[in-house]
């Protein structure tokens, strides 16, 4: 026992002071992209051509779909004029699919919190049931990590529960494989009303790398059940997911 106490004292308190302090992210982290149309050279769309999942439309101005983006940075590397940069902003979640379209000089859309009734209902207890529907275990792992002491989402009253019957929200990851469609719908049905659905990761939003595949449902989770929160990333950084949920619940602005 003394060894445990000693080690506990030595390792100390390690929970991050978020949201009081902004999280520290590595220098190479690729967050919200910035598109500068004014710098855009007439290069016949090298950025759009470099994107492996067609997340970028190159018309008069480039428009990026954050819901599809894998944040691989291929477009930024391909652009001869450095008109695309991935910044440090990890706050990427949106309450509407359309809000994930990013174009030049446009500020991020505000995330619409849940209505006052539902916010009061969830109060300081927001229970999540996670379903992986073809996820590669990266989104799952970086959702699970929110329960560790580094993030400790329990302090906001958010936690994962074992049964959909006990859950307020369904956190879905993966492109929804055909083989998981039924299990996902059954789990959704098992949640009591009112229910919240969170689509976390590029796959869950719109198929991610598997967009358009024969073995996955077209259009991600939202094509099957109504989604309240879209969390972009491949996988989303844990802070991105936590920030999205906290803004949805109105805990942070």
């Amino acid at each position, binding site marked *: 026992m003394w*060894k*445990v106490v000693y*080690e506990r004292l*030595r*390792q100390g308190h390690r929970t991050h002071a978020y949201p009081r302090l902004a999280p520290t*992210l*590595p*220098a*190479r*982290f*690729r967050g919200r992209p910035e598109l500068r149309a004014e710098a855009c050279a007439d290069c016949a769309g090298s950025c759009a051509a*470099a994107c*492996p*999942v067609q997340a970028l439309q190159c018309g008069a101005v480039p428009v990026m779909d954050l819901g599809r983006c*894998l*944040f*691989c*940075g*291929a477009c930024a590397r391909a652009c001869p004029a450095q008109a695309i940069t991935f910044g440090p902003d990890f706050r990427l979640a949106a309450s509407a699919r359309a809000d994930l379209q990013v174009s030049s000089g446009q500020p991020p859309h505000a995330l619409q919190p849940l209505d006052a009734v539902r916010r009061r209902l969830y109060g300081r207890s927001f229970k999540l049931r996670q*379903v*992986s*529907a*073809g*996820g*590669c*275990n*990266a*989104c*799952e*792992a*970086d*959702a*699970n*990590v929110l*329960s*560790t*002491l*580094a993030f400790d989402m329990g302090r906001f009253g958010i936690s*994962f529960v*074992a*049964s959909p019957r006990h859950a307020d929200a369904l956190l879905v990851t*993966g*492109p929804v*494989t*055909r*083989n*998981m469609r039924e*299990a996902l719908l059954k*789990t959704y049905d098992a949640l009591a009303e009112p229910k919240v659905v969170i689509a976390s990761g590029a796959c869950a939003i719109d198929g*991610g*790398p*598997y967009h358009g*595949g*024969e*073995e*996955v449902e077209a259009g991600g989770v939202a094509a099957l059940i109504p989604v309240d929160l879209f969390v972009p990333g*491949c*996988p989303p*950084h*844990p802070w991105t997911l936590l920030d999205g949920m906290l803004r949805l619940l109105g805990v942070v602005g």
Partner: protein
Amino acid sequence: MSEVPWLWVENGVAAELTSLASVELKTFSAALAETTLRRLALMVIPGDGGVLRLLGLVADEGRGLVGLLSTEVAERYPSLTPSCPDLHLFERELWESWGLMPEGHPWLKAVRYPQRRHSGAAQVMPVAGTLAPWQVQGEGVHEVAVGPVHAGVIEPGHFRFQCHGEEVFHLEIALGYQHRGVERWMLEASRPRQMHFMETVAGDTSIGHATAHALVMEGLGGHEISPRASVLRGLALELERMANHTGDLGALAADVGFLPTSSFCGRLRGDLLNATAMLCGNRFGRGMVNVGGVGWDLDAAALAELQRHLRGVWRDIEGAVHLLLDTPSVLARFEGCGVLSQAQALQLGCVGPTARASGLRRDVRKHFPAGVWRDCYHSPAFQVRGDVLARAQVRWQELEKSWYYCQRWLEELPEGERVVAAAPGSRPRALCVGLVEGWRGEIVHVGVSNAAGGWAAYKVIDPSFRNWSALAMVMRGTEISDFPLCNKSFNLSYCGFDL
């Protein structure tokens, strides 16, 4: 028996397709059944005019070579599984996705329930998990069904236990829920997109699968990456191993209610993922491995920062794991639980820490060294008891070795280009085998290029494909309450299996 005309290749070195011998089916079957070498894979290369060629691979660990042999097959062939149980899933896979009937297969069931065959033909598959399970009948016998949606934050799979009271007679594991059609799609997808498939075959093994794919691509392109790129790849691979092994030890601690290590390791796993993010901006190493090199280099400042970060993390890992392996009640719970005998591990063809905990010293880093491992003698960690404790101890020994390598590489990072100049194009009508020791074990990629330089076939074998059967075997005769702990001690991938 006359000399078998195996084609011998090294890890990551391409060979002409014409040098691959095609023998009579009988000779092929006998060669695979009678070999003393480890069978690596059984797969199909579609030939011209709809002819299917079966390709068998064996691993000669002593010489560091992979042997390949092929035969033409029609719709059916005598199953190899009765004499080679390690091929049971490979034959089921060929039956399901190519329509090849292995006559006499004792357990011919669906593997992944794909909507389409490899030929592109649609097929009507039952919903995953609905095939009748094997059942035990009798007084007091009952079934326990778990999944596909589990209690934790975990991927989907269905487990069906046949029990008598607490005792498990048999566990059937039905997967396929995660099937995304990776292998078939590889044949049609653009090259950059292929890398994203590889990075998400099993998202926690992004570096492992991306490296195996890069080995195949570079082999076919005839490209040699720089020493620096090769060390950076090795570093990323070992960081991936350290993160997952640390997480696993924490999860094992959680499953026996030893919360200090569970809490420490949950955080420390994240700190190791953050180290990977310091390398390439992504906690899972996405974008780190490129064909021809690596996506990111380390400058002096980044290198120093990474070293400082890792030193602090390592000190805490040591503290956390020593607590775990120094607590008698934990050891008592781990010891003798979920025993996989060496004979079983051999029969099932197990790989990775699972095999090494049962006394099989199989490790790609030692036997099939490529990249940084060519200049680095690796002595695989191993244990002999095959229980949960052995699997935990192997993980700890591997963590220590990985940390040693990481330190050494960061101190002596060689010079070299981040990526070699030209993007490699594939040599037409050739094949290449890429082997990588991922944190779960041996990752095998086999690429066969067609006349146009695209893929005629691309095979991905995640270590989980071989090891899931071992989990089912160790449950026999144990108590069902041991399942969570046993399962955690293997920690296999669902999507790596389902592709």
